[in-house]
């Protein structure tokens, strides 16, 4: 096969996977083949659609504000001050970002929900017969969002601060600026690009968020849940139009924020000596505060672990669970029907990640080696699934692959074991692809030339020089991709079948059947697998947050 043909086939494959389902969805929303705006008019005439649309937007904006308010000060504290336990705490509080969102919501429910530990404690203290609150509605969503997404601001700001040259501050101080003025006039302007990046990531993540609004949104609707409910009600036309609308907001948000980011690009990231950390006078106090903060942040997950040891139906009115046993864990690992989702999730995530890695690497290789129009097309195609909420892709894939029209590139995959791995693969493409692009761009082309001048043919150059050097970046990308697929809920809920149900769907059904202990065991398992994958493979690459992995 010639190189040209191979490149063309790659572009067609990616366009078919990424672009085609979206175009079909838009066409369907426009009533193809008799093109009409009727469906959009209907959409615009329904108040509940406007509520959901507005809900998505304001929740996302509020999430950005709240996450920034928590993440930025924390980053300053951990990056500019020195106190006992700073290093380990700094890492611990970033952990929520690698855990599947569904697990975070679950943990929150068990701790702060109406039948959670805290509510029960308050209830028994008040000797009331009613739970003191319900973890439900937009406030609850915001709480969960802020809890998981402040990490973006925290990590980005820390990385930005670490890159700043101490000479900036010394220069400002030598010019007589006070510390407040330095912060306002020097530090924050220099940090703008990273803050804009964090804001973009938070906004997009929040816009795509599904687990939190679905499980604790109550009657409050956002676009992602609206779409899924429309589909559950069998109104596929409404779902399609809603999907198109959500995609449009996501793209608008992306364009707007990226433009803002570009405009603010500062030449500031000069690498010199990083500013020395100040040893705080009240170090013990700050350390104490920091440790209690970490405890608060990790408490939900501790609660999840506790719940996994509570047998079904044993904890009714007591403030603390009266019985703890391994029964849930035994049940998960010994009953074939309970073990099945774990096996499903593992093989589907592994297959999807391997395929996404191969495709992402092939696209990056082509685009970096032969820059040009085809190269930029490949790069854009790889990035698209990142820009769009998972729900959008799930609906688009469901619509595209429920029709048999081989000549139009459509096959019936919905309802088969192939659809979920395919969906995970598409969602994983940006994660593995971006890692491959970054890795290849950092690779000095002279290394491959050196190998060539030493007589190595292309295959050997790739195997002996390129691949080993890309390994850390690829491992990091693959690890985030694997975690995302393993814990996926948003795509799975649209496309799963009973045979291929993944862990997340099983968690949902165990909540429905009030087997919370089993659900918690699954949650702990998912969290543990994710953390292990991240710690073993994910930390080899760029120190900066890969970002945007776990969404939905």
């Amino acid at each position, binding site marked *: 096969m010639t190189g040209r043909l191979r490149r063309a086939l790659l572009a067609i494959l990616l366009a078919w996977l990424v672009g085609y389902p979206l175009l079909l969805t838009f066409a369907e929303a426009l009533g193809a083949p008799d093109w009409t705006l009727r469906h959009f008019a209907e959409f615009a005439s329904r108040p509940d659609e406007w509520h959901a649309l507005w809900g998505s937007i304001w929740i996302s904006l509020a999430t950005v504000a709240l996450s920034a308010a928590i993440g930025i000060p924390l980053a300053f504290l951990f990056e500019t001050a020195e106190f006992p336990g700073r290093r380990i705490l700094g890492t611990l509080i970033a952990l929520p970002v690698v855990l599947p969102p569904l697990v975070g919501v679950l943990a929150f429910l068990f701790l702060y929900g109406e039948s959670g530990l805290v509510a029960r404690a308050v209830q028994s203290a008040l000797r009331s017969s009613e739970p003191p609150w319900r973890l439900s509605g937009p406030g609850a969503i915001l709480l969960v969002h802020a809890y998981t997404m402040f990490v973006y601001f925290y990590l980005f700001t820390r990385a930005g601060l670490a890159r700043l040259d101490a000479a900036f501050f010394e220069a400002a101080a030598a010019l007589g600026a006070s510390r407040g003025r330095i912060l306002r006039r020097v530090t924050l302007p220099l940090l703008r690009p990273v803050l804009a990046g964090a804001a973009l990531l938070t906004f997009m993540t929040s816009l795509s968020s599904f687990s939190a609004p679905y499980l604790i949104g109550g009657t409050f609707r956002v676009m992602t849940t609206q779409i899924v409910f429309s589909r559950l009600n069998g109104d596929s036309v409404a779902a399609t139009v809603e999907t198109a609308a959500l995609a449009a907001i996501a793209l608008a948000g992306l364009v707007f924020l990226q433009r803002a980011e570009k405009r603010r690009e500062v030449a500031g990231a000069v690498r010199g000596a990083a500013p020395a950390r100040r040893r705080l006078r009240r170090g013990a106090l700050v350390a104490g505060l920091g440790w209690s903060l970490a405890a608060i942040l990790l408490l939900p997950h501790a609660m999840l672990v506790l719940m996994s040891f509570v047998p079904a139906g044993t904890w009714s009115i007591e403030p603390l669970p009266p019985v703890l046993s391994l029964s849930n864990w035994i049940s998960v690992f010994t009953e074939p029907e309970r073990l099945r989702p774990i096996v499903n999730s593992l093989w589907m995530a592994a297959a999807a990640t391997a395929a996404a890695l191969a495709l992402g690497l092939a696209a990056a290789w082509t685009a970096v080696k032969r820059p040009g129009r085809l190269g930029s097309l490949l790069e854009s195609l790889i990035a698209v699934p990142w820009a769009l909420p998972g729900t959008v892709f799930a609906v688009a894939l469901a619509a595209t692959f429920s029709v048999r029209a081989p000549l139009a590139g459509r096959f019936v995959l919905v309802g088969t074991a192939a659809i979920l791995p395919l969906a995970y693969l598409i969602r994983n493409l940006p994660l593995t692809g971006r890692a491959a692009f970054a890795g290849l761009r950092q690779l000095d082309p002279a290394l491959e*030339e050196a190998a060539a001048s030493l*007589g*190595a*043919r292309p295959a050997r150059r790739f195997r002996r020089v390129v691949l080993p*050097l890309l390994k850390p970046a690829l491992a990091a990308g693959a690890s985030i991709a694997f975690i995302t697929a393993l814990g996926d809920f948003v795509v799975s809920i649209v496309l799963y079948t009973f045979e291929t149900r993944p862990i997340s769907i099983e968690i949902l059904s165990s909540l429905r059947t009030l087997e919370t202990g089993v659900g918690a065991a699954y949650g702990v398992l998912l969290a543990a697998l994710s953390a292990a994958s991240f710690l073993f493979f994910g930390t080899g690459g760029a120190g900066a947050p890969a970002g945007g992995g776990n969404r939905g």
Partner: protein
Amino acid sequence: MTPAFLQLDSLEKRFGALAVTRGVSLSVGRSEIVALLGPSGSGKTTVLRLVAGFEAPDSGRIVVEGQDVTAVVPERRRFGMVFQHYALFPHMTVGENVAFGLESQGVSGAAARERVAETLAAVELAGYEDRRVTQLSGGQQQRVALARALAPRPRVLLLDEPLSNLDPTLRDRTRRELKRVIRSIGITTLFVTHEQEEAFELGDRVAVLSRGRLEQVGSPEELYEEPKTRFVATFIGRSSVLDGTWTGDGTVRLAAGGVWRAAGEGLDAGQPVDLVVRPESLALTGREEPGAARALQAEVVERRYAGRAAFYVVRFDGAGGEAEVLAAPEAARPGDRVAVLPDPAGQTPRAYPKESAP
């Protein structure tokens, strides 16, 4: 000259609308060391990459030992290359780096180990096989890069700015080392540099490039004593450029006044010229001394002490421009009025057609 071992024949390379090399032809004899010298952007690195095979010329040929390799991929040319930043494989040890090219040739096991040891010994890094390349100093990395390129016994050695990455104190020593190793192997070598000193010390001959064109190829002495073009005359060594007019009888009438004897080729009487003079070809005298007819009146504007002599920058009266003169350290002081005239013992100033573009 020895018969050509490596022959570059009218190499042309364009990147878009930009012609990077224009009709570059060069013969390199067996075991000869040729330096490609030029300022940045002169196309010297492109010439080297064309020879290595990393770029394909738009036209022209590259011939080695009578074999046309223009269309041959780099991995089959058997040319060794040392990259500017060395391009050592960071995930391999020193030994693995040096053995890489041997594997391509099917040399492995004890034979490979032996060749690696031998090559490392040649660059004075015996016993370094198991070191990580990231643990080495800049000078050591440079030598590993050289050993890696030499181990497969290439036909031609190519070096891209081999010393530019070293700090100045290390450069002198490494340069002598490099020369010793290349000489002892007797390999045909083409190397790129922007430093005249490097080119002169390492190169048997030096090829001067400017804006993609080969200006002159010759020994260091030839380039210094008989520069063929204005570019070579000003690029090699120190010099000043004076405005004047070619008179047709071997002299130049200077804009600053006076008529000086000059060497020039293919010039017409009355043609405007640039007269290029070396600092050591000028002398300072008092104003009233004999020979004052040829002397130009000037003021000393700068003096730079250089041990047994000093460089003086003088500004000629009127619109005559400036020149640099080498003279005794106490010959004058800034602000002094002096007369400047050609030193009969020095190199005759050379006249070149005036160029409109810089």
